[in-house]
Every structure is written in structure tokens, then in C-alpha cells.
């Protein structure tokens, strides 16, 4: 990428006050009348360069909200702005295309972004290097382990060169050791790239390990129940006592939210 473009982009980032602005968003499925209300009046800003985790029980509407921000679906009410253009999105499943190699998956993202053919290979290699998969350009998806697949998926998302990265429980299917390593990697890459991240999870410790701000979503309908700003310095460990302490507090809130549903 040309340096001037990068600079222009950095200026853009400074000019806007948010990477995503979600305003009074509601979403219901089913008919326009009497459908199931999944999200109710959600308002949330993600600042440029901020790392926000969206935490909530299964089925509370986290994926629904992320799909709305990604532009894959339309809100029933309210508005969503992403000034940096189409956000990048990572799923729980790697969603890599099995007919392409790891490197070609990334090159496809570059191509669709409009990067000319000459620069693609080099840029793909650089992105693989960034997720520490330098030698894996020619590997097929099925030849990679679960953790490696998610790293390629991360590299492909980064290839979109979007200001905002949306992540939908991307590490939920990985074993604990691998997940721990990927937390460290994600933190490192977030700090290097100055991306804004909106990260969805149902795992409280993961939320606290990663985020500058944790937003708790209630269930049925999904509303913002509580917010915590976290100033524990990065890189953190998931075992840190400060992480554990805050996790405990958030878990209590989450349990309270879930308990409310048992009372009716």
C-alpha cells in the first residue's frame, strides 16, 4: 500500500469521533407485526482504535447485532454508521474458502478491495507474517490446525484494510491453550494496527482479558444492561488477579440478568 494513502487514512481516523455508531437500534424477526423482538433500543459507540467486547448469554442477540453492523442485515429501527466503510467480520467458524490456499484466501480479499494484481502476493505474505504464519502461503485450509485457520481468517479480515474489525466468538471453538495464545496475538495485532475492534463473546474472562470496555447485553430482548471500562494495562493474562476480580463482578451481573428470566 502506498504511504500517502495510509497517511490520508490516519487523518480520516483522527477526524471522525467513532468507528461505529449504533443509535437506537431495534431488530425483530418474523412479520412486521408481532414478530420476535431480539434487540431493543441499542445505542453504542466504538471509538477509533477502541477495543470493545459485547458480552451476553447465548441467544441474546450478539450475532444479530454484529450482522447489523456488518451490513449483512438491516435494523428494524434506528441507524448504524460505520464511517470507515464496510467493516471486516470474523466468524466462529473460520469461513475460509476450501478451494483456495491460505495465501489465495487473503489475496481474494485484497482483490475484492481493489488492490492491483502486482502487489497482492507480497501483501498476502506480509499479512501471513503478521499472524506468524510466514510459511503457510501455499497450504490448503484442511492442512491447517484450528488455531492456524483462525489466524488465516484474521489475516484475511485484516486484508480488507477496514478501520473496524467485528469478531463473532472467533475463538469459542478452540482449546484453552490455543485460545490463550490467540488472545495474546490479537492484543498485539490490535496495538500494532490501531484498529477498532468490536468483539462478541459469552466468555466473561475472555471479555475482560481483551477489552478496554465491556458491554453487557441482557436477553430477550437484548438491551445494554451494564458497561465497564477496564484500565488493567495490556498485555494482560487471563490468569491475572485483576482480570479474575473484575470477571467475578461481571459474572454476578450476567447471572442476575439470566436469573430474571427464571422468575416469570
Amino acid at each position, binding site marked *: 500500500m502506498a504511504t500517502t494513502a495510509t497517511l490520508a487514512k490516519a487523518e480520516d481516523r483522527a477526524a471522525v469521533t467513532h468507528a461505529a455508531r449504533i443509535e437506537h437500534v431495534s431488530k425483530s424477526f418474523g412479520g412486521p407485526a408481532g414478530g420476535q423482538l431480539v434487540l431493543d433500543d441499542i445505542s453504542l459507540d466504538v471509538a477509533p482504535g477502541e477495543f470493545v467486547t459485547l458480552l451476553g448469554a447465548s441467544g441474546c442477540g450478539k450475532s444479530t447485532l454484529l450482522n447489523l453492523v*456488518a*451490513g*449483512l442485515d438491516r435494523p428494524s429501527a434506528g441507524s448504524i454508521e460505520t464511517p470507515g466503510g*464496510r*467493516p*471486516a*467480520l470474523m*466468524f466462529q*467458524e473460520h*469461513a475460509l*474458502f*476450501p*478451494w*483456495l490456499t491460505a495465501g489465495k484466501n487473503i489475496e*481474494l*480479499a485484497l482483490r*475484492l*478491495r481493489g488492490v492491483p494484481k502486482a502487489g497482492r502476493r507480497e501483501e498476502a505474505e506480509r499479512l501471513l507474517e503478521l499472524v*506468524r*504464519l510466514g510459511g503457510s502461503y501455499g497450504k*490448503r*485450509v*484442511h*492442512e*491447517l*490446525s*484450528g*488455531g*492456524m485457520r483462525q489466524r488465516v481468517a484474521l489475516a*484475511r479480515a485484516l486484508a*480488507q484494510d477496514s478501520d473496524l474489525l467485528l469478531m463473532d466468538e472467533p475463538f469459542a471453538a478452540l482449546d484453552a*491453550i*490455543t485460545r490463550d*495464545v490467540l488472545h*495474546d*496475538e490479537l492484543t*498485539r495485532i490490535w496495538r500494532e494496527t490501531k484498529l477498532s475492534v468490536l468483539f462478541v463473546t459469552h466468555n466473561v474472562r475472555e471479555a475482560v482479558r481483551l477489552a478496554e470496555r465491556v458491554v453487557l447485553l441482557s436477553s430477550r430482548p437484548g438491551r445494554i444492561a451494564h458497561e465497564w471500562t477496564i484500565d*488493567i*494495562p495490556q*498485555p*494482560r*493474562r487471563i*490468569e*491475572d*488477579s*485483576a*482480570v479474575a476480580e473484575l470477571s467475578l463482578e461481571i459474572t454476578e451481573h450476567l447471572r442476575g440478568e439470566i436469573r430474571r428470566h427464571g422468575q416469570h
Partner: protein
Amino acid sequence: MASTDTTPKTDDLAGLEAGLDALDTVQIRRTPVREVLVKKVFPPVVAVVLVLGVWQLLVSLKVTDEYKLPAPSAVWDSLTTMWLEGTLLDVLWTSVSRALFGFLLALVIGTPLGLIVSRVKFVRAAIGPILAGLQSLPSVAWVAPAVLWLGLNDSMMYAVILLGAVPSIANGLVAGVDQVPPLFLRAGQTLGATGLKGAWHIVMPAALPGYLAGLKQGWAFSWRSLMAAEIIASSPDLGLGLGQLLENGRNNIDMAGIFLAIILILIVGIAIDLLIFSPLERAVLRRRGLLAKG
């Protein structure tokens, strides 16, 4: 509070990650030639030898008249006679070239048809069920109208092939497109592959295995349809193909010739599949890690 001494050093992390990758990576092993011979080549050879043995045994025991069940050697003699007369390759080529040309025609028509049926809701509702139903209609049924419409010539043969193979190819593509995982479509959409770009970069490659299965079946139908056409519609103008060879055998009460024709029809059908379609299909599935190793 997190103390700095518990934070991992970058080098440690890289090392840890490299270790995890090494431990968790699937080892891909290529099957050695010996194993392929023992597991893939040997069993069918045994089966063929067994069939020949049983056949010879039945002939030796004289379970039926010679004109009803010729000896394997008699069939072999028919084959060598044809070879020495120089007609064998001509007959094979007449049928194979017809079938392959007809198949290519079916490919050119069936592919866009399949695309339209899979993408345009109205067209799908209108002709989707008919297209699926046509697959179960024996192509022999088309020979009679084709002869009346087009006369006893090559066009009539191609018409019968098309009516047999186009539905298979189109249906294969429709099935392939239907089975594209929605996750791929959503992933493509977030990358900016929508509309035609989405069709080209995501839907088509994702549907390839289903399409290939359709082509395979399309070939089988092409070959069958052609044989039906050749057997029923024989005429001196049409050039001698395998179907006519079989029909001539019947007219001359030459059971060895009939057996030879049947065996040749079988072998050609299998050979084209084995030489063209199966390798293609396996290559695609292997690249995607969809081929079960056994």
C-alpha cells in the same frame, strides 16, 4: 494488578505458537504405489477374472446351446477379426466421437440452464421440477420422436443425447449451488463479493463438486442415450457405431458379436469415466480435503 514479569515476551509467544502449530497440524501422506495396486487395482482384476472363470465354466458344462452362450474365446475371436479387418477402431471412434461431441453440446447448454434455474426464482418454479423429472425418463423414449422430427441422421443422435444429458448437468449445477454453505456467502459478502462478483468468486467454485457430479452423470446419460439411439435407429447412412454393431449381431444371430458389442459399450463407458471424470472429481475433492482417506 498485572505485574510486568508475568507478561509473555513476544519471542516466547512465537515459540509457543510454532510448537502448537507443529503439534496440531494434519500430516498429509501420499499413498504409495504398492498400496494403490493392492487396494485399488487388485480387487477389480480379481472380480473380472472370476466372471471370466464362471463364464468359461458354464460354457464347458454346456448348460445351454452355443448360439445362446458363446465361449469367451469366440468373443475374443470376433474382437481379433474386427481388429484385423481394421473396423474395430472405426466403430469405436464413430460412437465415442458422437457421444463426446453430444456431451460437450449438453455441457454448453446445460450449464447456463442450470445457472438460470438456480438463480432465477420464477424459472426455477416453472421448470425446476420438470428438469428433475426428465432425469428419470429413459432416453429411449426420445428416439421415436427424434427420428420423426429430424430423420435418420446424426442430428437425431445428438438430439437424443441432449435430451438425456442436459437435465443431469443442469440438475447437478442446481444441486451444487443449493448446497453452498450460507457461511461462505456471508463471508463473501463481507469481503465485497456480491452480485456477479459473488457468483464468480464464491458461488461457482463452491458449487464445483456438485457440478462435477452432474457432469459425471451427464456423461453416463450421454453414452446410454446414444446407444439406445444407435440400436433402434440403424440405417446405412449413419456409419457403423457400437449400437449398430450390437443390432447387426442380433440380425445375424451372432451371439459372439453381440457379447463383444455389449462388452465394448461397457468398457468405453467405464473408461471415459475412469480417465476423465473420476480423476477430475477426485482432484477437486482432494484439494478441498473432502476425500476420505481409507
